[in-house]
């Protein structure tokens, strides 16, 4: 990302151009931006056309409306970060994506300011898997590489955050929308999950998005913001195999077969054990049967899933507690940055998604938090 050599060299035209770029990236008309930032439409037009420059308070308001830092307006040719949606929300997709990218940048800034950067990022596969067999091999390889164990779903999020520094955020999408991801030279790899989905569903989405991150270079070169149907199917295959190891699943099924069939209550029980949705469990069994040349009817599988969903509706309470929007490590870094006077109280409030007054109250409480836990030498 290039920057202008010095602020003094900036022309009104250059700033105006960046204001226009930021507004268009956010998907806003001048009228909408004007209303959000409380800056007059004619003033905004003047700024964008380089007739005059905004004052700091106006620029701050516009930056906030565009989800960009003030530093954005000093850049020469800022790279455009890409968000890949699995299923784009019908409403507010630009807003969700813009907020997601802003959080990713904040996270990266906090890592830098707290000197806590991840040494080992998500690898970039030189070549994408060409078929389901290759996607399955990739999943087995990654499961082993990440040491995910026999029940990968409950640990996947933590492992991705700790080992590969993946930034995982949650937002509530309405009325539809599943997950999204992004990979950028600046902030690394990031995933956005739907907080309204159940935890088991989110586990699958996380694994699905991981496939996109691993194959980012291979797939996104030709198609930055959209994926093909094949790519999505490969991602589903990858997620399914990653979260449901074949040998462990077979062992867990054990003697639950009844006349060569797995009763739905048993499938529901297994889904709970592996912390995946009953859909994911049944599709995995379907895939294993296909691989073993069994005759399976996809329509019948879909009908079974509908029945299983209805049966498991009351027992699946995994959506009861929506996850926090910001990950725990992000929040810890923000606290650390505040304590070491690396960020202001106002920024801390913004990063944590709380009011300035709540942040001030937090500062009051933690003013006495300088005590250290001491280990006795004896």
């Amino acid at each position, binding site marked *: 990302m290039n920057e202008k050599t010095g*602020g003094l060299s900036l022309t009104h035209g250059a700033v105006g151009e960046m204001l226009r770029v930021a507004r268009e990236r956010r998907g806003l008309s001048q009228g909408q931006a004007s209303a959000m930032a409380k800056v007059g439409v004619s003033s905004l037009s003047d700024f964008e056309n380089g007739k005059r420059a905004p*004052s*700091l*308070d106006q*620029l701050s308001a516009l930056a906030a409306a565009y989800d960009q830092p*003030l530093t954005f307006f000093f850049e020469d040719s800022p790279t455009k970060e890409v968000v890949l949606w699995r299923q784009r929300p019908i409403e507010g997709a630009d807003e969700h994506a813009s907020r997601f990218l802003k959080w990713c940048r904040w996270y990266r800034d906090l890592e830098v300011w707290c000197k806590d950067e991840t040494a080992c990022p998500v690898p970039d596969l030189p070549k994408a898997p060409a078929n389901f067999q290759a996607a399955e091999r990739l999943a087995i390889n990654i499961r082993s590489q990440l040491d995910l164990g026999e029940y990968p779903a409950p640990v996947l999020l933590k492992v991705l955050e700790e080992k590969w520094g993946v930034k995982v955020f949650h937002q509530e999408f309405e009325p539809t929308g599943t997950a999204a991801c992004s990979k950028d030279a600046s902030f690394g790899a990031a995933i956005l999950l739907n907080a309204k989905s159940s935890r088991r569903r989110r586990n699958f989405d996380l694994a699905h998005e991981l496939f996109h991150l691993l194959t980012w270079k291979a797939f996104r070169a030709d198609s930055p913001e959209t994926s093909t149907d094949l790519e999505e199917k490969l991602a589903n295959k990858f997620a399914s195999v990653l979260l449901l190891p074949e040998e462990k699943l077979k062992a867990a099924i054990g003697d639950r077969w009844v006349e060569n069939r797995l009763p739905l209550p048993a499938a529901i029980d297994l889904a709970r054990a592996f912390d995946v949705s009953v859909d994911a469990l049944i599709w995995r069994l379907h895939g294993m049967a296909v691989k073993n040349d069994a005759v399976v009817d996809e329509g019948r599988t879909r009908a079974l899933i509908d029945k299983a969903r209805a049966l498991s509706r009351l027992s699946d309470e995994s959506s009861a507690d929506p996850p926090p929007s910001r990950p725990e490590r992000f929040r810890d870094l923000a606290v650390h940055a505040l304590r070491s*006077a690396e960020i*202001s109280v*106002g920024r801390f409030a913004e990063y944590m998604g709380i009011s*300035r007054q709540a942040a001030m109250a937090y500062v009051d409480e933690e003013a006495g938090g300088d005590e250290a836990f001491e280990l006795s030498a004896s």
Partner: protein
Amino acid sequence: MTKRLSFLLLDANIIIELWRLGLWNRLVELCDIHVGQTVVGEADFFLDASGNRVAIDLSADIASRRIQVFQVEFSELAEFRSRYDPSYLAKLDPGETEALVKLLTLSSDWRLCSADGIVFKVLANVQRGEQGISLEEVLGQVGMSRPLRKQYTREFRTEKTKLGAIDAIQNRGRKE
């Protein structure tokens, strides 16, 4: 009436605390107060003892010129960014950036009152550490002393100013 304390810039946290303590009107009578345009928007409410939101309305003080409001032009911001660590723009509130940029264009008589560690740290780093002032010191100078929480004290300001001085010695945070 001559004000007892002139050339005083306030940031949003200080205004909020003064309103919370019920000291705002008295301080405005005693001090020549200047606030940035952004700060006017940032200091929007305080929480009373019961946790209820109470709106802060500075409009009457602004209209009657009991407090002065200033703006920072883009060129001044650009100069600040070109001279100092560009990350300050991301680390500071817009209101604090506004106050710091303004202070750097003013004489050494001016003081910036804050309860934010980073403000004192940056001031020291740009060789203006002596222009930072805590709320405790402001209240002391106008005869309104009272016990305050740590971030409003001279001790807090001194501690954070020292951090900035260390940064300056280690050549962090400055471009020149």
